């Protein structure tokens, strides 16, 4: 079932009427929700951005879905990166200032996993964007036409959940 949902997510993102750039931006932004621990203020702000800015929401959900297992797997790396940054003598002044500024502490930037995963996401956001944009463009150019003739694909896109979603968002194949 989960696999089917992921597949639907993938299909919707790749075939929505957003440009490859919008889909790629959605994937890049959505990755943050999967890579960093979810219940933090920065994710709330970025979720607001995902809604307000005209980027592909299916792309956001696709990026999120794909990044969740990656986030769990890379937690030890995030922890190491975050710990190194939080213990760096050169950055101590910055952390001390941020820690004593209103609202900022609610981002939990002072947790090693939160900071490490966020920094890794910042580093990866542009590569993810460009890779996703190229991938979506290639897909639409070469794969999509062949896929839409397949019965499985037609069945998938004809599911009730997908139809509801399509009617709400206005996206189409």
């Amino acid at each position, binding site marked *: 079932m989960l696999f089917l949902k992921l597949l639907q997510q993938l299909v919707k993102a790749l075939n929505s009427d957003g440009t490859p750039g919008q889909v790629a931006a959605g994937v890049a932004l959505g990755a943050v929700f999967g890579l960093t*621990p979810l219940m933090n203020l920065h994710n709330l702000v970025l979720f*607001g951005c995902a809604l307000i800015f005209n980027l592909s929401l299916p792309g956001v959900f696709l990026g999120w879905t794909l990044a969740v297992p990656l986030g769990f797997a890379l937690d030890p790396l995030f922890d190491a990166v975050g710990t190194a940054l939080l213990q760096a003598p050169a950055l101590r002044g910055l952390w001390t200032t941020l820690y*004593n500024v209103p609202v900022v502490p609610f981002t939990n930037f*002072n*947790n090693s996993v939160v900071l490490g995963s966020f920094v890794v996401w910042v580093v990866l956001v542009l590569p993810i964007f460009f890779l996703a944009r190229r991938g979506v463009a290639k897909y639409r150019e070469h794969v999509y036409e062949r896929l839409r003739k397949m019965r499985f694909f037609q069945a998938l896109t004809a599911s009730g959940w997908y139809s509801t979603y399509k009617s709400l968002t206005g996206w189409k194949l």
Partner: protein
Amino acid sequence: MKIFRWKAVIPLGLFVLLVVLFWTLYVDRLIRLGIEAGGTAAVGAKVDLRSARLHLFQGSLVLRGLAVTNPREPMTNLFEVDELNFDLSVRALLEKKFVAETVAVRGLRFNTARTASGALPPKKAATAPGGGPSVASGVDDWSHKVKLPTIDLGGLGKAVNVARVSPDSLHTIVLARGLAARGDSLQGSLGRRVAAADPRPVVDSAGALVARLGNANLRTLGIAGARDAANAIRTTLTAVKGARDRLTSLQHDATAQVDSLRQQVAALDRARADDYAYARRMVQIPSLDPKDIAAALFGPAALQRLVPTLLWTRLADRHLATGTAPQQKAGPKRARMAGTTFAFPKLHRWPTFLVEFAEGSFDLGGRTTMAGAYLGRLTGATTEPAVYGKPLTFLARRSGAVAGPESIAVAGSLDHTGAVPRDSVTADLAGVRLPAVDLGIGNARMDLRTGTVDVALARNGDAVRGRWLVRSDSVGWIRSGDTAAAAAAPLGSSAWLDGLVWRAVSSMRNVEVEASISGSLASPSVDVSSNVGGQVANALRQAISAEVSRVEGQVKARVDSLLAQQVGAARGKLAALDTGPLKSLTDDQGQLNDVEAQLQQKLRGLTGGLPGIRLP
């Protein structure tokens, strides 16, 4: 292409509304759960809270029905509060910090009974939040390890089995063996260094030069010959001086090492005294020292009163951060890895938790010494004292006693603002009804009636010093059990001892008991003294001193015989160092001095003893 998706504003607004709704509905519940979880982790026993109500815009938090279980008595609350009213700093809350400018406390009660046990499951209770042993179990371990003497007269009048004193259990033997080994090693190393610094070649060469010059002088050698001879003497003198400097340095070093060993050998006598005491315990000879007897009579009661003070001092230690360096703790529990959460305190900013001023009235229930109504005040309670920069102070004064003209004042200060924590607590109780104390022997119970209690505890870094002093001049004695059996009981029997103790103490009206702790906070030593101990000691001495002296003599002889060989060996090694390397060094120095004097004399002879003449 549009940058903004304006139609998403409504869903976003709805989302924000949902968040606000969630906050409104659940924030009080979250606060309650947070306080219960945090408090439970800090205390090591259940903390219950009936309700919490946060008024964010007014900056007020009201907690109702707070009950903190005593970790040592899970069916009792350490304290219970009907209502706590916090006046909060909203700006500090925005920094994720809890700063209460004032706190009003209503209905604070101590030692109240619980309807359900507040003990934690064994897994949770076994370890403290930091992963180390819990503070309570650490203090318990210490109190169980404190060795309190007992009055056991079972061995009197019987043959003493001195063979029970085993050589392996005597500390002096271990020390003496170590000293002998160190003496051996020192003799070897010093011997090698003395041999390496042997001045004999220099002495021989100088002696040969002196012999060669014989009675030569300026006339017999001529100017050139005298000049050469003087140069040879000067060169040899330089060599002699170098050799002497080396020997002097070696002698200083050797003397220091041998002196250190000498001091340790002298310390064997103190160790021997400890071994005598140990051996006496092994063969159950009762101590007639008033201090030992006082410790046997009142030690358990004193420990019972000292343990809570230590417990609170260590709890404060665990939860108060020192300095302003970043602190680390485990991150929040979640499906993802918890990681490490760092705190970056800053001087002159708010600490993570602070109660600037709290005041309230409270009651201590029951009819005990402390029962009554109190007024209390507390300032500067914070988790980061160095950031706040002021010590925590507290003061409690009884405003109304349950009965009698009683006065109680408790005051204290916990200064963890610097690198070295300094805590002090004093309590003065005057004219209070004191509890009765079981002596443990003599079937005697001491009713202290009305008296005074002084408690003082001072802690400076790792060193702690404390005193618990009880005085009463109206003591009553209660005896229970069979009193007739004592008269006919054999010497040393339990009944005989009961009778003796009762006769010794039952006429006493003035009693003073003092328990003190000193030493390191982790494992302080306990000392108990009392005039009751002196009275019982005198009675015992009169009754059994001859018997005790006889047995003590046997035990000392046994210990001396066991120690003789090892202590003798250690002393022998020391003597060997004195007569070996140290004596060699002194002899060598003497030879160098002699030969130097001869060379100086020859040099003067060459110049004819005329001052101011120097050969070219």
